[in-house]
């Protein structure tokens, strides 16, 4: 019977693993060994347009590494949708890769499993020192006060992308810098079947990213200093309401966006149906949809007033990919060498250029290639006005609980049901109550 299929899937993995490992109940908590110094397995996250493209991009680099060190790297590119489950399975069974990519928002959650190598001072020194990395990027690699669970590899931030032609047609001269301006511009742009702003209402992560930033601007963190959820604080409620109101009250987001989850808002943007989107490094997607670089511009994500900065003027989460090492690796020295290689100036410049991201390594970031207007916006945002998502163990729960609450609120707004402070608070209250631990 398929009754407890979900539980069975993981338990089967466990039981097989237990058989293999002689029923040790998981893995050792040691610091790895050097039993197999000549090989490494690497799980890369899918960064490029396809898995094949990633293999093409990474393989020559891995060959280079093999030439330098004599260590052969076995590459597997894992699609985003599978990555977290694959990591969980590897953690449970102890049969994972040596080195892997993780989404940086999962850092603290995965850190709590105890399966990843902590990046102590010694470990950081082995790859050139912690100071080589941008602070905000290191801050998104694990819980505060603990050694990071990973090392930043590619950094990303949000920007406001706008369609230059739509702006010119509506007589708008420059991109909005504050939310009031954005709403005013959005109203001018929302007519004749076209809309001012795009959103991905059914994409939980995107909902979290946007409401987190608005939360920061309202002085809300979603978690208190002890790591307890504070989803119903006035600031958090105001932030979520402000975001939904772009559709519900200001009517600058098309109702159809409530069900978007597969980057449809980028397609709408490329087709000229919406004039603005808030996105991370969208250039390659726009290009693949037939847009020319001169068709669009990038500006910092608006703030309430003034210019972007820290605290209430935060305008992006620190997005990006980190590189982690499984603690039970059989090639700990090789793994560190590989991380050192991938975070070297040369590789950082090359890979980040290819992927359209920003190097989290300061010296590589100084390269001219990252000064193109749109990348400069992302770079400055990362340096000056981005904040990491709450680095708490139950971050993964937070994304689901609040992300779903926001999704339901979008559905309300799209159906024309009223979205009030009370209704927002009620949804967030429910989300908070489902948080266990």
């Amino acid at each position: 019977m398929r009754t407890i299929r979900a539980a069975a899937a993981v338990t089967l993995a466990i039981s097989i693993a237990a058989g293999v490992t002689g029923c040790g109940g998981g893995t050792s908590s040691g610091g790895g060994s050097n039993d197999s110094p000549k090989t490494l397995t690497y799980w890369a996250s899918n960064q490029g347009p396809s898995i094949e493209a990633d293999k093409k991009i990474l393989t020559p680099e891995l060959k280079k590494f093999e030439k330098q060190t004599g260590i052969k790297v076995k590459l597997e590119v894992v699609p985003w949708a599978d990555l977290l489950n694959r990591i969980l399975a590897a953690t449970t069974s102890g049969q994972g890769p040596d080195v892997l990519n993780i989404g940086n928002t999962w850092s603290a959650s995965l850190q709590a499993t105890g399966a990843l190598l902590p990046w102590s001072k010694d470990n950081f020194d082995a790859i050139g020192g912690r100071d080589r990395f941008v602070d905000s990027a290191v801050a998104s690699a694990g819980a505060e006060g603990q050694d990071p669970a990973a090392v930043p590899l590619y950094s990303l931030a949000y920007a406001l992308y706008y369609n230059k032609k739509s702006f010119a047609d509506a007589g708008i001269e420059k991109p909005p810098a504050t939310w009031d301006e954005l709403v005013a511009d959005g109203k001018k742009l929302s007519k004749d079947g076209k809309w001012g702003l795009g959103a991905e209402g059914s994409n939980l992560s995107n909902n979290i990213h946007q409401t987190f930033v608005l939360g920061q601007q309202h002085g809300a963190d979603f978690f208190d200093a002890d790591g307890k959820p504070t989803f119903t604080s006035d600031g958090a409620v105001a932030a979520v309401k402000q975001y939904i109101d772009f559709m519900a009250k200001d009517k600058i987001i098309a109702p159809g966006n409530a069900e978007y989850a597969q980057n449809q808002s980028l397609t709408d943007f490329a087709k000229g149906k919406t004039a603005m989107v808030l996105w991370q490094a969208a250039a390659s997607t726009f290009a693949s949809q037939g847009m020319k670089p001169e068709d669009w511009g990038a500006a910092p994500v608006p703030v309430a007033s003034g210019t972007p900065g820290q605290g209430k003027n935060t305008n992006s989460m620190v997005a990006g990919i980190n590189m982690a090492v499984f603690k039970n690796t059989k090639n700990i020295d090789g793994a560190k060498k590989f991380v050192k290689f991938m975070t070297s100036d040369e590789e950082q410049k090359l890979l980040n250029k290819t992927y359209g991201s920003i190097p989290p390594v300061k010296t590589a970031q100084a390269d001219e290639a990252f000064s193109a207007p749109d990348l400069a916006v992302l770079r400055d945002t990362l340096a000056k006005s981005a904040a990491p998502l709450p680095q708490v163990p139950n971050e993964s729960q937070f994304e689901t609980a609040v992300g779903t609450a926001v999704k339901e609120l979008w559905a309300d707004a799209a159906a024309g049901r009223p979205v009030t402070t009370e209704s927002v608070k009620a949804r967030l209250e429910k989300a908070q109550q489902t948080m266990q631990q």
Partner: protein
Amino acid sequence: MTATVTTDSLTEKSDRVTSRGSGGARRRLPRIPDRIRQGGLPYLLLLPAVLLELLVHVIPMIIGIVMSFRQFTQFYINNWGGAPWSGFDNYKIAVDVNAPIGEALLHSFFVTCVFTFFAVGLAWLFGVAAAIMLQENFRGRGFLRAIFLVPYALPVYAAVITWAFMFQRDNGLVNHVLHDQLGITDQPSFWLIGDNSIYALIIVSVWKGWPFAFLIVMAGLQNIPRELYEAASIDGAGIWQQIRKITLPSLRPVNQVLVLVLFLWTFNDFNTPYVLFGKAAPENADLISIHIYQSSFVTWNFGTGSAMSVLLLLFLLVVTAVYLFITSRGRKGADA
């Protein structure tokens, strides 16, 4: 169910082998001692199935039950044996309908019941209707039979993702027909979020499920003697009377198994809602399988998720047992 059938047929087969008992059989199986051949062979033949059954179903189920009594969160994934025991805490959380987690589980249970009732009912109805219609031989019957089985033959993911495209509000085929062409709705409706999502789910599930009912009923119809219909029509029975008095009663044993299987599949269906809605289903279509998946794998509360799974298993066992009891009693009555 399946296990019993296999056991019976295996036993029968081995009985036949041993009952021959002549020199011929001995020559074919020279190395097996008489004692095993006579007494143990059936069990020997069963062994691979039993081992696989243990490995695939029983052991994971036991581990799942053990997990449901532990406080199993991300802190213990790496060392799952070390997760502290929590007694019945996970069960208490799951059934406490005054707290959000229990309330959401109960809500999802009701949603699943409503969904299953309509999805199974309609799939059965369509399946039976189509099978009866295709009973008569006519030109193109073979073609129709093949076409009807297409939803059953398609890979679930490909089929459901296509439905998801068709249900999109702005670019989907469903709204294009309902709104743009027929003008039935005032404005394009949402199908993948909000109140309509349950309808979308039922439609896809029925589409996916009825060919199976069609196939099984069609097979069942082959066993009804044609003479019954001939006799009935000589006696002046119309087509409806024939269906009511001959077809449906003769199909009864087939239908009993069919409805049970459809019920179990539909109640537990994970693929359809997951592909249609992603990992956060709309409230109106929050099926229990997705709900448990979310509790276990998305929010990493494996203990609570396991407890919910065990409760679901118990519920389905009870329903199945009651169903089998009622239907077998009915059959005995009919036989007597």
